[in-house]
Every structure is written in C-alpha cells, then in structure tokens.
C-alpha cells in the first residue's frame, strides 16, 4: 500500500495528460513487439514473493487478481464477475468468472484463490504482503466459482487487497515449497502475457496469451530489457532499441523537445501516486511548537521547488493524497509563500536575532538544524538546497546531509536521530494511512517515525478503515487532511508527474488517472507500421 519512493525506481508507465495523441484511421491489428527497459532485473515472478518494482512489472502481466482498480479509481471485477459484502462489512463473497484458463489449459477455480490465500498467510512464505490477509478469520470455497472470506472486524481496504497477490495455480504448486519451485522463474499465469524466455542480466521476452480471458492482446511480444544505466537507456531509446521508458523531468522538457522525438514518439504526463515531503522530528523541542513548523511552511515556495527541481512537472501537495482523486481535500489551509508571516510567527515563538549575525537565536542558541535525505535522489537533494536558501532568508541556518539509504534508515530514522528529513511516500488508491499517522505506530521500524500524536486523528483513522461507504470515508479523510494541514507534522511539498514516452506506432493508448499501461492488451500497432515480428 505505502512504500517509500526509492531513487531510480522505474515509474509505472501511465498517464492522463497526453501531449500528442494522434488518433488515426488505422484498424487494430495483431502483431509487433513492445520493447521497454528497466534499470533493475526482476528477481521472482510470483507476485506475493516479489519486493521490487521490476518483478511486479512483469508479474503484473502474467497474473491477474480477483479485483482491480478502474480508471476512475473505483474497484471493479477482474477474475471476479461480482461480489457481495455483508451489511456488517465482515463477509465478502466473490463470484468468479467461468471458463478462465491458466496458460497450461487447466481451468481457474475458487480453490486456486484459497490456495493462494493459504500460501500468503503461511509462516514460511517470505512475503511483504501478509498483513492485510492476517485480518481474515475464515476463507472458504463455497463451490467451484464462489469464494468467501470472513474478517475479524470490518476492514475497508480489504476488498482492494484481493488483487493478483493471491491467485496461484494450485494444480502446479500444491505440496511444494513456493520459494523453491520453477514457478518463480517460469511462471504459469492467466494474464495477457506469458514468459517465453528469460536471459539473466539481459532481457525477459514475453509473448501474448492467445486465450486470455479478456481477449487476445493485440501486441504479440513484450520485451523487458535490463539496462542498469539510465543514460544508456535514453540513448537506446534514441537509437531505436527501446519503444517505451520513463523520462526524467530534464529529458521530458528539454532533451525530447526535438523534431525527431516529436515525429517518432508520444509523451504522456500524469501525477504519480506519491508525494515528497519534509518531515520534522516532533520530539525535538523546537519542532514541537506548531508555530515554528508553520513559519517554515510559509518560508518555502512550493511552486519554486516544482519549477526548479521538476521543471514544472508536478503539482504542489497540500496533504498526503494525490490531487483529483476522491480522498483529496482541495480546501485545506494553504501556506502561500510569505516570509513576513514566517518571521512574525518565529518572533511570537521567541526567536530573535539578538547578536546581529543574521541567524535567529533564543536563549543563546542559534536556530540551526540539519535536513537529512538519501543519496542517489537528486530531486530531494535539490529540494533541500532550495529550502536551505529560502530559510536562510528568514534567519534559519540549515545544513544538508545526504546519506546512503541503509545508513539513513538504520542509523538515523530508526534511532530517531534526525531533526528534519526529506522523503517521499508512494500511496495506494485506498486512503487508509493508519500506519503513518496513528500514535500507536511509533516503535522502531514502524512508520510514524516523527512521533505524531493526535487523538482525533487516531480516532478518525480507526473509523476510516472500518467504514465502507465512500461518501462517509471521504468526510473522514477530508477532516484528517484539515488537521494535518493545520498542524503540519510534515510540510507536504509536491506530487511529481510520471512522464513516460512511447513510440508513436503504438495506438489505442487511453490515458487515465491510473496511467496508460492498464489497457496494454488493447494497445496495437497498425499493420503497415509494424516493426518487429515475434519469432514463433
């Protein structure tokens, strides 16, 4: 659900602001191959065992779930035809689609789901996604096409958890140690593509599954090339070795602004489900004071950060949700850039420059603190530099320390040895953020590492995950955002845009809030434009 945004993670290729779609009179046709690149190599192709984005990129094409997110972020059936939720919210009954076949020809049934469920909750399965399923008290197969789960208590994010993590072919895995089977590298799935060949360190070649239950995908082949160096990847794109990749802001705005690119490629842009923020250690005596946090917020110009760091490819964040999604509250307290107001708040809190060195002080101590961030993410480092410059203008001295990721997490975050950090969260379409804001989640390795504690927010978070009605949940999360905007445990900085580029011969791409790749099986290359034939 929530993962910190790691540097260099390949953005999922998705979009809804499209720069130049040329809808043409071409007919959809079967054939051709899409070549994309990744800096990392997948490690395992069973979704529940995978921890990295590369593995999920590929596993997502091979496995489907019971449900999935629609383009408007509502939940719709995937392998499930329909479902019912009992009035008390404790029981979900899924009715599965009939006649869906695994790529080895065996029919998919409810016992495959039960098998997947039993596997994911098994002690011995090394998976990062157990938690949602441990809330289930009973899972049962009612008949071949009906699957029912009962929860211990109402749990609103429950429905969305029945994605592709728990659908496994029982007939191939029963009685086997899942980490040791050939399935991890030669998976049998039921998704639009199946793995044809995996050349370690080089590429994964997928071919379309002709009997895919939603219809044979138009594009016959999908090649995932492993190119560890991002600069090399961009050159490969220019040389025709790649059809699709995620661009950096610099590449999107400047380097692809040439005639060749405009002619041969289509660019997309849409907000990523993540935000970058500056978090304060609320145990620190200075940052305990709300006025200080607000003063810093007034002293930072978010627009400037977006323009400079992201080349304008992002939007200001006001809370922990993505603008234009249903949980997002657009009317919370906004901190427009206002250094005068910032100074005034600091004065109220007792900070004055008494010795005339340009730095505010109180009780003989200068206002000086350190912002930590992780190495390898230049966006964060540059953001920190701009904040440093802006805060210097109101008399606060900021130091920046960039640390290697593991050191950063183990020595500073976990041990609470920080004053402020710049980090990012990636967020799920479900608004539950219990783990980040609830006051019970402050132990080591838990995610309320700033020590935020607000009884009203605690209560709202608990209520939010018990409520199924979207309208009511919306009210709850709107209120949480109001409180967070007033109290500012984080200064929410920006929501970056994903900026994928795709070769222009690919048609049928329909940008949406969840991106572009959701309808990959419906993409096509018109016959006269086809480039690569897939070897039989």
């Amino acid at each position, binding site marked *: 659900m929530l993962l910190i945004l790691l540097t260099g993670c390949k953005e999922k290729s998705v979009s809804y602001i499209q720069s130049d779609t040329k809808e043409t009179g071409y007919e959809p046709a079967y054939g051709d191959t899409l070549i994309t690149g990744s800096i990392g190599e997948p490690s395992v192709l069973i979704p529940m065992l995978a921890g990295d984005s590369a593995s999920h990129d590929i596993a997502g094409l091979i496995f489907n779930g019971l449900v999935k997110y629609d383009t408007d972020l509502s939940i719709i059936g995937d392998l499930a035809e329909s479902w019912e939720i009992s009035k008390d919210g404790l029981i979900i009954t899924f009715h599965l689609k009939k006649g869906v076949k695994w790529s080895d020809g065996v029919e998919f049934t409810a016992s495959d789901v039960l098998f997947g469920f039993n596997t994911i909750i098994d002690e011995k399965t090394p998976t*990062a996604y157990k*938690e949602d399923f441990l809330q289930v008290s009973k899972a049962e197969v009612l008949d071949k096409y009906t699957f029912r789960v009962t929860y211990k208590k109402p749990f609103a994010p429950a429905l969305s958890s029945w994605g592709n993590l728990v659908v496994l072919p029982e007939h191939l895995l029963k009685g086997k140690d899942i980490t040791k089977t050939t399935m*991890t590298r030669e998976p049998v799935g039921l998704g639009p593509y199946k793995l044809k060949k995996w050349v370690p*360190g080089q590429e994964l070649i997928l071919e379309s599954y002709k009997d895919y239950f939603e219809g044979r995908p138009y594009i016959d082949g999908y090649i995932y090339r492993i*190119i560890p160096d991002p600069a*090399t990847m961009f050159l*490969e794109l220019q*040389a025709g070795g790649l059809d699709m990749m995620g661009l950096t802001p610099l590449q999107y705005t400047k380097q692809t602004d040439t005639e060749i690119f405009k002619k041969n490629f289509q660019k997309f842009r849409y907000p990523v489900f993540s935000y970058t923020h500056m978090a304060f250690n609320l145990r620190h005596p200075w940052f305990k004071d709300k006025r200080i946090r607000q003063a810093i917020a007034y002293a930072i110009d978010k627009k400037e950060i977006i323009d400079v760091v992201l080349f304008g490819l992002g939007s200001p964040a006001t809370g922990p949700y993505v603008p234009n999604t249903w949980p997002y509250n657009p009317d919370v307290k906004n901190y427009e850039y206002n250094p005068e107001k910032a100074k005034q708040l600091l004065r109220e809190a007792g900070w004055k420059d008494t010795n005339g060195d340009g730095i505010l002080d109180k009780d003989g101590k200068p206002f000086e603190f350190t912002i930590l961030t992780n190495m390898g993410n230049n966006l964060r480092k540059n953001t920190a530099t701009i904040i440093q410059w802006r805060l210097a203008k109101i008399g606060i001295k900021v130091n920046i320390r960039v640390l290697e990721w593991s050191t950063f*997490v*183990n020595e500073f975050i976990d041990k609470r040895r920080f004053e402020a950090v710049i980090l990012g969260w990636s967020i799920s379409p479900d608004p539950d953020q219990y783990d980040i804001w609830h006051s019970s989640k402050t132990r080591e390795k838990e995610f309320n590492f700033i020590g935020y504690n607000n009884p009203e927010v605690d209560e709202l978070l608990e209520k939010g995950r018990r409520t199924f009605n979207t309208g009511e949940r919306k009210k709850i999360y709107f209120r949480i955002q109001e409180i967070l905007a007033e109290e500012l445990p984080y200064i929410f900085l920006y929501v970056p845009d994903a900026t994928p580029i795709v070769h222009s011969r690919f048609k049928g791409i329909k940008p949406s809030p969840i991106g572009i790749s959701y309808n990959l099986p419906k993409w096509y290359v018109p016959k006269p434009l086809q480039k690569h034939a897939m070897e039989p």
Partner: protein
Amino acid sequence: MINYLFKRIFEMIPTLFGITLISFMILHLAPGKPTDVLADFNPKITPEARERLEKMYNLDKPVIVQYVLWLNKIVKFDFGESFSSDRRPVIDKIWDKKQPLTERRLFITFMLNVITMFVILVIAIPLGITSATHQNTLYDRITTTSVFIGFATPSFWLALLLMMFFGVYLGWLPISGLKSMNYDSLSLAGKIIDRINHLILPVFVYAFGGLAGDSRYMRSSMLEVIRQDYIKVARAKGLPERIVIYRHALRNALLPLITLIGLSVPGLIGGSVIMESIFGIPGMGQLLFMSVMTRDYPVIMGIVIIVGFLTLLGNLLADIGYMLADPRIRH
C-alpha cells in the same frame, strides 16, 4: 620447482581464508540488511514479520556465527542461496549451467577482461618500446600525453560520448548489451560479427583507460635495459638497431610486465563493475553491483571468493612465468 609450486599453492589457502574473513566482516559492518529491500518503509511488514525474515536468513545470529555457517558450506564448494527473493543458488547466478557457455556471467566477464587485456598489451607494448627508443622526441611526448589523457578520462563519460556518436548519430554500433534482438535468426558468421560489434565500444573504452600503466612500465623498463652493458656490446658488435632492440633488449624489458599482468586482475574485475553497468553487459561485475545494492551477502561473497582466487592465481602464474623467463630467480 615442483616443491616450490606446492608450497605456493598451499600458501594460497590461508590467504584466501583471510580474504573471505575480512570481506565478510566489512560486508556486515556496512549498515543495512538483505531484508531491507522487502521490509524497509513498507508498512505492510510488521516488526514481527521482519524478525521472522531475519531469522530465516540467520541474520539474527552474531556475525562470526554467520561466517562459520558460510564457511562450513563453502569448504564443500556450496556457495549457498541468494538472499534476493528468487532464492537461487549463488553458483547458478554466476555460472548458470542452463545457459549456453557464452551467456554465463563469469564467462562473459572473463572473456571481456581477456580481450581487453590482449588489446591493451598489443597496443601498450609497441607504444612503450617506441617511446623508449625515441625518448624525449615529439613522438614520445605525444604518446605520453595521449595515454595519460586516456588514463584521466572518466570512462563513463567517454562511454556515453561514444555511444551518442557511434550509436545514435552515426548508427554504426549498438549501444548496449551483448547481442542484437534478431541474434537467434543470424547465421554463424552474422552472430560472430554481431558479438564483435557489441564489444567494440566497451573494449575500446576499457582499454583506453588501461593503456597508460602498461605502456609507461614498458617504456621505463626498456629505457633501463638499453643502458645496460650487454646492449652496448650488442651495438658494438655492429648488430642492426632493430635486432638490438627487439631481440636482445625486449626480452629483458618484458620481465616486469609479467608481474604487472598478474597483479592487474583485481583492477580489471573492479573496472568490469563500471563497464558492465554502463554498457548493460550481463557479466559478473553487473551482478556484483546489483548484489551490493541489495546486500545480497551470499552472492557478494561468492564473487569475492572467485575474484580472490583469480587474483591469487594471477600472482602465482606471474611468479611461474617469471621463473620460466628469468633463470636468476629459479632458485
């Protein structure tokens, strides 16, 4: 001679042991654990689940115990299993028997290094000799300057420039990888040409940076030799300069180079990490880089022991080569 060899091989064992011990300790001193990839900042992982994961990998035990566990396996030539989520045996990652020989990581790295070394020697030796025989001339200065430019140029930068020029602008050479998309459908000759095309840029960039060392050594060693009395004698006998240099002087001047080659193994493997990452070459260097990033201890240790062994082997071969070439140290 045989006794000496046995002694040397026997001495390799404690050295290798020391290498693994120190590497293992340093590896575990670095912050971070293999489980971080899965568990760090992932709210779906409870602290209990994290502990379970750590237990599974024996990470809850003291480092020295972990080392002994690893050592116990390695003496039986069992490299263990990778900590990454694929859990593959380390040996399969480095030397995948299911893949053809030319696709195995160790082979790829080894071949890349052998080819590079060969190219370096073929260029550096004549370059060193000629700059020695033309000491302090314009030619000497030009070659010296150029090899130092090669030495000082950051390889990743040069690599990108060449990729842009030959790959994108001219379109003559492939940019990354080891073979083309249509490789399988090529004829044998086509396959060989395709492979060579893919190797031109990496080998050039790699060798360009390595020329300085060998050519300078060659030059100074040659300069030393041609001042010796026996060269004077050869010249006094009235031998042509060509024979004096290439028959009498060169043999002796080459001796230090044997040692140099033997010692360059770890440096070359280190360079592979960078080269293979830039050019997307699926060798052992790339695997090492990815494994370090994810703290995949068994894979890192597997590569360390292979590189350590190759280094010691390089030293041994250099010594043997020296012994064969120079009768003075045979005793």
